[in-house]
């Protein structure tokens, strides 16, 4: 096995500039048979030893999903997905079933996360960040649980939450994204495997950054994680999400659902650096990323902010939204979407203003190079009840090369005459004069481009937590290497 890893590593080093997370961990897997039917849904539920109500919910979702049609409106094309040709459950076989703590987790798995730069073992752990590591369909381990428990914070995998905190899960699961919401959310509701559950009690400011790292490893599997974050009155949490997958010639489906609930005066900050495998230069392989993310600002003065750096996936279909129900609640969306080679991204946000004096900010930066298609699609909706609502949207696109495209589809729907909205969008290329200036100061081509791109995305990067911000800058540099010249 070590031989294979070495070979892989050599290969990886060669491709380091391309995608350094493209390796594959050889580990025995416990898979459900391919295909999707009620038996599979029952099997997944049984594997997770779920209570009756959870299975009922999954089956309801599955029955609803069967009536639905895959959406055809996104602004990209992809090969048909054969939903019967996917493994809906795949878990690494561990020597010990249900490891009680990280010491009991398989060496191989820990190594994998080490290579991904996510050390799970106690001594190497980054201080200040608690990690829940999800490998294919299951959560491998969650760090810092003890410390968080002292503050009354629950941070665990979804399966654990269903088992130990059913009253909370029952109350909030599906309350923001119901199982009838859309095609991919329904599919997720039926077959969701693992994900993180996070509960911040009243008045607690979470002392650590919480984070989940998602890894797809097995071939022909789909990953369907589900994350639920509940912030009680006057609490605060910052949550980070990262994701990678091995390089393969076939496409893999990833359909996740994330639900956030912020009650009175609570604040949730959700950051994502998405770096799924995006396919090779000819556009073969890569992850199909169909994600439903939605936050509900239920309480007064509550605040939800989404920050995302979308740099991977062959296809990204993602609209993190905020339902601004509580009076004076605030929704924010900061996004950088980078597409190169044959990637396509149709991403944006939805801000639905219901409460009085609600505010929302949208800053979206799209960078498109090679043969990529990058679309911003956003909705700002002011309901009749939302007196004094305020929105500011800005979406800028940058084109690098002449075979790519940048599109914006902003929908603005206003049903209240006290609303004030501003929307602006621009499309441009890297300014030749700026390039000339930087080059004349001794910076080489790549450095100049990276500096300009950094400046272009700065509004978004500064919203990211520090470690992520550094990673995001590097990620963009790596991705754009060689595309300008």
């Amino acid at each position, binding site marked *: 096995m070590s031989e294979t890893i070495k070979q892989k590593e050599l290969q990886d080093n060669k491709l380091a500039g391309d995608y350094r997370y493209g390796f594959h961990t050889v580990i025995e897997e416990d898979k459900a048979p391919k295909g999707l039917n009620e038996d599979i849904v029952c099997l997944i539920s049984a594997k997770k030893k779920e209570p009756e109500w959870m299975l009922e919910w999954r089956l309801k979702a599955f029955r609803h999903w069967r009536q639905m049609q895959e959406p055809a409106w996104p602004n990209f094309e992809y090969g048909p997905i054969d939903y019967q040709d996917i493994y809906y459950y795949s878990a690494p076989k561990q020597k010990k079933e249900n490891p009680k703590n990280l010491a009991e987790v398989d060496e191989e798995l820990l190594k994998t996360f080490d290579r991904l730069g996510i050390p799970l073992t106690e001594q190497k752990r980054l201080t200040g960040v608690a990690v829940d590591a999800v490998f294919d369909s299951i959560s491998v381990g969650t760090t810092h649980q003890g410390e968080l428990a002292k503050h009354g914070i629950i941070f665990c995998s979804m399966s654990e939450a269903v088992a130990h905190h059913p009253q909370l899960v029952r109350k909030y699961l599906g309350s923001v994204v119901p199982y009838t919401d859309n095609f991919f959310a329904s599919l997720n509701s039926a077959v969701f495997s693992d994900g993180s559950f996070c509960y911040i009690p009243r008045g607690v400011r979470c002392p650590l950054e919480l984070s989940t790292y998602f890894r797809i490893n097995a071939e022909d599997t789909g990953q369907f994680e589900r994350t639920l974050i509940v912030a009680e009155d006057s609490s605060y949490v910052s949550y980070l999400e990262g994701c990678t997958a091995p390089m393969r010639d076939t496409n893999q489906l990833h359909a996740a659902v994330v639900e956030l609930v912020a009650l009175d005066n609570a604040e949730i900050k959700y950051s994502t650096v998405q770096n799924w495998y995006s396919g090779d230069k000819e556009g073969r392989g890569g992850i199909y990323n169909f994600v439903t993310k939605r936050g509900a600002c239920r309480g007064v003065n509550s605040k939800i902010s989404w920050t995302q750096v979308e740099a991977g996936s062959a296809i990204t279909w993602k609209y993190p939204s905020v339902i601004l129900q509580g009076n004076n609640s605030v929704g924010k969306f900061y996004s950088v979407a980078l597409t190169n080679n044959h990637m396509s991204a149709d991403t944006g946000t939805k801000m639905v203003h219901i409460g009085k004096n609600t505010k929302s900010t949208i800053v979206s930066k799209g960078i498109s190079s090679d043969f990529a298609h990058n679309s911003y699609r956003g909705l700002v909706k002011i309901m009749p009840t939302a007196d004094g609502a305020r929105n500011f949207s800005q979406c800028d696109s940058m084109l690098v090369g002449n075979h790519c495209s940048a599109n914006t589809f902003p929908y603005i729907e206003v049903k209240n005459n006290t609303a004030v909205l501003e929307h602006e969008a621009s*499309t441009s290329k890297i300014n030749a004069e700026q390039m000339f200036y930087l080059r004349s100061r001794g910076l080489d081509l790549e450095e100049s481009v990276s500096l300009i791109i950094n400046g272009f995305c700065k509004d978004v990067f500064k919203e990211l937590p520090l470690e992520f911000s550094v990673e995001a800058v590097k990620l963009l540099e790596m991705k754009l290497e060689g595309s300008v010249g």
Partner: protein
Amino acid sequence: MTQQQMPLNIEGLQEYQSKLSGNSNGWLKTFRQKSFDQWSAEPMPTPKDEEWKYTSLADVINRRFQLARRHQLVEDRQFENYRSRADINVVLVNGVLWGELSNLKDLPPGLKISSFNEALGHGSDEIRDTVSKLTPNDSKPFLWMNQALFLDGAFIRVMPEAEIGPLVHIIHVTSGILPDTVVFPRTFISVGESASVDILESHISFEPVSYLSNAVTDIRIAANAMVGFCKTQAEAHQAVHVGTTRIWQEAASYLDSFSFNFGGRLVRNNLSVLIKGEATRTVMNGLYGIDGNQHVDNHTLLDIQHPNCTSYQLYKGLLNGKSRAVFNGKIYVHAQAQKTDAYQLNKHLLLGKEARVDTKPQLEIFADDVKCTHGATIGQLNEEEIFYLQSRCIPRPTAIQLMSKGFIDDIINTIKSDSIRAKLGRLLLKKFPEIKL
């Protein structure tokens, strides 16, 4: 095909079709038949269609329509007020050119105006060229319906290098009809190379009768020509107006277009400009002032297929009462259209408590060396500014008038033709008497 299966329920359709012009004419017959087949095969759009997301035609679809039997002006006093003697007036009643009301006798050199049917009689090559070069846009069902069923139309030609001084005013009047009539105003305009002309196309009606006007205008602008084109729609409050304007712009030509909407209960305007040559300049401005339960939907498309083109677009909306405005502006820049400079802005002033706006400025860009920006704002009058005026001893109603007028004026002032500006000023006054000042 029986009547029940048609997308729109129209009485006496077969009899009407047998009388249409072009039945003896080869290409026009095929053209009409093809359009008819296309139209009858497709259902009417519903809000489930992306292009009709915010405009429902449910009320139109459920009605039983008839075709106009008479083409005579009933109410002429108001009409006389609207028309001015200094212009070259081309008057069409219910889609048919009315020679007595038009002054087509002493046209300036280089300008040829006739009815569509007359032009067909003289040789239809030019019409065929014009029609076949224009591609359909987003309002397909209505376009097909018009092409299959239009009775007559205005055919205007400006010869190469002609400079037409007076304003050419095409007036489409709907008059003397029974309730629930459908009319098909049609206009062809062809402007030759290096020619210049100002054209105003008005759609008006004075009688309080419900009807559907399905208007289509095709304009072809040859290289280096300069065209000012303004479309005004001030129809009766019961009218439904679906207008399609297709403009074809060749190299180094200049188009200054303006779209005004004041009347009608439900109005949908499709304006598409195809850029078919390098270094063109395009201005697409618009203003809609609506109140009550009016609904105005403006869809614009600018399709840029050649390099070095510039465009400027500003649409403003003034909404009172329960009115509803929809704006969808699309700019499509093809990969070869480098050095495009496109600007688009959509502004709304919400005066009415229950006014509603749905706007979607849209960019689709495939070329990298371009400068494209768009913006949209929605707001109401600034209380601080009103307070400022009040503190200068200006009463609140006057302050509101002043500021609303300021909002409208900057766009009205972009119109170069004095004659058009004066006419629009009068319309505006009628609609919003409080903004007279």
